[in-house]
């Protein structure tokens, strides 16, 4: 029953976020609305972590598996991909590495600047 209840809570949050998505004046995906909504519920104490813990562990622990059907759908687009597959590969690989490096570097740099400022204030 515990797991069943947690299923209910999380699916409920997802449904409410679908409703929110429907009434928002701009397009914003329900899954991210659900994430923000659940975080707000937890932070305000409306939901307690015990209400969702096991189910969340199950979903997060198996996250990669839930992408299998989305990946298999590539089978439908073989024709479109044939002509540009090489460019697509290069673009994906290069931009993934660039994005990773820029994000990691900027975060590290900002953290360092913050710490320096803090240190400066102390001194």
């Amino acid at each position, binding site marked *: 029953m515990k797991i069943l209840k947690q299923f209910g809570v999380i699916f409920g949050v997802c449904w409410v976020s679908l409703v929110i998505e429907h009434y928002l004046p701009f397009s914003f995906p329900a899954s991210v609305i659900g994430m923000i909504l659940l975080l707000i519920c937890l932070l305000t104490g409306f939901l307690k972590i015990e209400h969702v813990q096991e189910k969340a562990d199950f979903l997060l622990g198996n996250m990669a598996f839930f992408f299998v059907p989305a990946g298999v759908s590539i089978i439908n687009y073989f024709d479109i991909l044939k002509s540009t597959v090489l460019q697509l590969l290069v673009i994906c690989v290069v931009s993934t590495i660039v*994005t990773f490096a820029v994000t990691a570097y900027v975060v590290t740099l900002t953290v360092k600047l913050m710490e320096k400022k803090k240190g400066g204030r102390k001194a």
Partner: protein
Amino acid sequence: MKELMTSPYFGVGLSVVAFWIGEKLHNKLKTPICNPLIVAIVLIVGVLLIFDIPYDSYDVGGALINMFLAPATACLAVAIYTKIDVLKKYWLPIVVGCTAGSAASMASVFGMCKLFGLDQSMTVSLIPKSVTTPIAVSISEPAGGVVPITVVAVIFTGILGSILAPTLIKIFHVKDSVAAGLAIGACSHAVGTSKAIEIGEIEGAMSGLAIGICGIITVLFSMLIM
């Protein structure tokens, strides 16, 4: 026989078996190329092609698995909640880093599309490729992009991120768990996050956070340029 394939048990069962084989291979070979997700996709595509099973039959079960994607994304909130102290302490680097990462992603894709001489519709299809599928589609579709291309690029980028993440952390000497997690989330959204969760708790939570923040920032940027 044909009707048996359209039972949801077929798609779900095939997916679980394929992913399980991928996991076993991954544990045995320990090479990042042997990503369970890739192995599962290749195996299933192979089975469908060899036995001439229509994608729609598989997708009866596939849609059931797909249904768990949104709840799984929502549950990243739980990962973030348990690391809320990190979020409070590092909110500035998180926002600045995600902004820079989103800009770098869009700019690098745009630059390479121009370099390869790809047309406008292809370019707008690829520009949002580092963010999670629903956001990427909501950007590319109204701008005249080809939705299937966006979907393929998003998933491929995600798989790439999850394969490359451990190597990239080493190559770029990323010692900070917060920076590593955000970088994984920024470059490869939820698929990469599934890997970040395996690397560490902070990495997982920060990667999840980056999905949301980079998603929002990418939407804002695309409103400005498209």
